[in-house]
């Protein structure tokens, strides 16, 4: 049985932890409301924009109407834009999306250029790459991976200006050799308790065809193109419109993915911290009980000592 002082120390540290998790929970709860409002408000635009993009892309069979629509016959190398948080203490949030992205690239069997957003993603991918380096049995397409760009410390409410650089890197990667496809791995926000890590094809824009069932399971199909029209009238001209909307809409998709991820991160952190607070509270209760027992025990034994001592003295007197 640990001493009462020992238990008291543990109670104190559990209480401290409880205070920290409570504070973090409160902070996340207020960010989550803001982030949720932002993500839900911009979702309709992003979805419609995506719809229009896919429709335009579906038209361009043969000669691509825009360089970002170019479907290359052979995929030599892919880029993955991985969106994670800068900080931990968000439950399995960061681990989940990174695990999904890694599972995806292992199935896809192509060399990867990673573009990471968020410090946690960068660190986890670095660790993964280091592990691969040591592993001599790893296939060559896996060993041929690197982080080409990393971003962190995005503002709490990012807008197009904040992600312009990320988008530029994505476009550059796709437009220069040897990257032939770009994917985006992010966490889709469903509600406060449910977030869904997903991998989406980003470039080139076209209905995605997976090569195998395993990949199919990992990559979200694009929203179905219900309206397949082959000929739009473009005003002023196809080139002018596509030059304007394709890069901009693609940027918006990236921004929306980041917003979804931010919302998910705050929610995940809030839930994780709430669970931690609850555990801390129940642990505190258990410890308090133990402390009371230990205290009672020591008092009882002290009384027994005294009573025993008194008894011994009296007997000595009687004798």
């Amino acid at each position: 049985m640990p001493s009462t002082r020992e238990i008291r120390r543990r109670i104190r540290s559990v209480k401290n932890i409880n205070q920290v998790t409570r504070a973090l929970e409160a902070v996340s709860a207020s960010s989550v409301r803001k982030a949720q409002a932002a993500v839900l408000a911009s979702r309709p635009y992003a979805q419609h924009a995506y719809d229009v993009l896919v429709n335009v892309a579906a038209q361009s069979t043969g000669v691509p109407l825009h360089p970002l629509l170019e479907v290359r016959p052979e995929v030599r190398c892919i880029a993955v834009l991985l969106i994670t948080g800068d900080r931990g203490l968000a439950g399995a949030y960061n681990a989940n999306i990174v695990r999904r992205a890694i599972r995806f690239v292992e199935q896809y069997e192509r060399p990867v250029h990673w573009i990471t957003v968020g410090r946690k993603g960068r660190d986890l991918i670095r660790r993964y790459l280091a592990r691969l380096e040591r592993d001599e049995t790893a296939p060559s397409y896996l060993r041929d991976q690197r982080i080409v760009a990393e971003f962190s410390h995005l503002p709490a409410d990012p807008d197009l200006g904040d992600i312009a650089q990320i988008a530029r890197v994505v476009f550059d990667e796709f437009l220069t050799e040897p990257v032939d496809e770009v994917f985006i791995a992010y966490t889709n926000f469903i509600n406060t308790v449910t977030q869904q890590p997903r991998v989406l094809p980003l470039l080139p824009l076209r209905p995605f065809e997976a090569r195998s069932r395993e990949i199919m399971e990992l990559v979200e199909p694009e929203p179905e193109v219900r309206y397949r029209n082959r000929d739009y009238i473009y005003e002023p001209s196809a080139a002018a419109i596509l030059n304007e909307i394709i890069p901009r809409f693609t940027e918006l998709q990236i921004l929306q993915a980041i917003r979804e991820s931010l919302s998910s991160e705050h929610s995940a952190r809030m839930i994780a911290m709430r669970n931690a607070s609850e555990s801390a509270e129940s642990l505190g209760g258990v410890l308090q009980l133990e402390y009371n027992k230990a205290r009672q025990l020591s008092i009882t034994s002290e009384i027994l000592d005294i009573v025993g001592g008194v008894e011994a003295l009296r007997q000595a007197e009687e004798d």
Partner: protein
Amino acid sequence: MPLEVEVVSRVRRLYHTDRADMVIIPGSEGEMGVLPNHTPLLTTLAFGELRIVEGKDVVSFVVYGGVVEVRPHKVTVLADDAESVYELDMGEIEAARKRARDLMAESPSEAQRAEIAQDLRRAEIAARVYSRVQGRGQRVRSLEDEES
């Protein structure tokens, strides 16, 4: 068959209807009326007034750039920014206009100049749309009416 029309800006969804008779779009190449069964079209938006005609009512918005996709039975307006005419506040518009003019007078840098010019254009378009709507004297339905 009536038209379905959806107006969204980058920050929110402003309006949706599936019984419009006509949409008048401020395209970058000029104003354009779209009736049901219009041929598919993709155009960029200028700054201006977007009108949705529904029977006797006209729902009116100010849009500030963006893209419109027209399908035979659906028009999707993806505005960079937009507001309902009902949200326009002449006092605020005047203030914005004055602010932009004052800033312009302080000989700003090239980059700032473009931004201020944009704000000024915005305020001027909003003012023009506002007075035009007032001048028409037609019943302009607000979004609140729509909800009730």
